[in-house]
């Protein structure tokens, strides 16, 4: 058991972020980065380049404003806010006035858009997984949802590690293509 005065993992992480410690930032990228990217991709409606640019901006804003924090819900909400503001600014930078105006016209309610976008991405992910071949789907589910190691999957399928990684790469490419098609058509 940890001593009573040792800081919580989140407090240690956020303190490290505020100090600019490489290890804290690597951990943050590993543990929180995928969630932020997913949120940004949903807001970007499948535009991975936009989501990437916004992710970079989000990290830079976090670097500017990070403070020690011990509340996971508060930290999570703050990250979402930072990500939303970053993608809005990146989008603003990319679009000219008229394009922006048209977009605001399309999105009558800016405050409700993020939830809708999240739902749209979730639906696209679920549908895209269903559209994959059963082999690809079971491979991705084993790796990502059952948390199995590549070596273990290889042993089950009597395949080498390299062959499993190659199949995973193909399955991910197919899934990405499906998700983007579904998001574009929605």
């Amino acid at each position, binding site marked *: 058991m940890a001593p009573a005065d040792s800081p919580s993992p989140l407090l240690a992480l956020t303190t490290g972020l505020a100090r*600019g410690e490489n290890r804290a930032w690597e951990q943050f990228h590993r543990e929180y980065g995928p969630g932020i990217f997913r949120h940004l991709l949903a807001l970007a409606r499948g535009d991975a380049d936009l989501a990437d640019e916004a992710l970079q901006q989000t990290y830079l804003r976090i670097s500017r404003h990070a403070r020690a924090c011990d509340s996971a819900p508060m930290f999570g909400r703050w990250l979402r806010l930072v990500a939303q503001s970053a993608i809005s600014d990146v989008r603003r930078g990319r679009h000219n006035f008229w394009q922006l105006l048209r977009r605001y016209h399309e999105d009558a309610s800016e405050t409700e858009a993020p939830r809708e976008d999240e739902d749209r991405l979730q639906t696209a*992910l679920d549908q895209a997984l269903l559209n994959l071949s059963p082999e690809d789907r079971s491979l991705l589910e084993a790796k990502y*949802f059952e948390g199995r190691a590549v070596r273990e999957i290889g042993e089950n399928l009597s395949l080498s590690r390299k062959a499993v990684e190659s199949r995973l790469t193909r399955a991910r490419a197919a899934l990405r293509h499906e998700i983007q098609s579904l998001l574009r058509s929605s």
Partner: protein
Amino acid sequence: MKQNRSEREAELIADLFHESWDSGEVAGYARKAARRTRRRRILRKSLAAAGIALLLATLSFFFVRSPSSAPTEQPFSSANASPENYEVISTDQLLSAIRDRPILVVRNGKSEKVILLSKN
């Protein structure tokens, strides 16, 4: 660390759009942010140190300067400001004191006038 479904989906999505999430180009964003944070901290500390140094320099300037800059032409110093050394008189008393006595008015160059009264 045990992950929930949502976190695993996020990891899958991150891997779909990036060759290597932990070490690829996207991981460079985190390294860049860490560098920026360190630079900002150094700058903030330097500015704070400079501010403190400036404050100390200003304070020491005024403290060193204040004894020598004490006014030399004070009409009353604390030594002669005791009630035995001065007297408050009325206008009538003043007029009677200077009546029939020569008065010398001297300009001291600062548009001020000094009035000298000869001894009786």
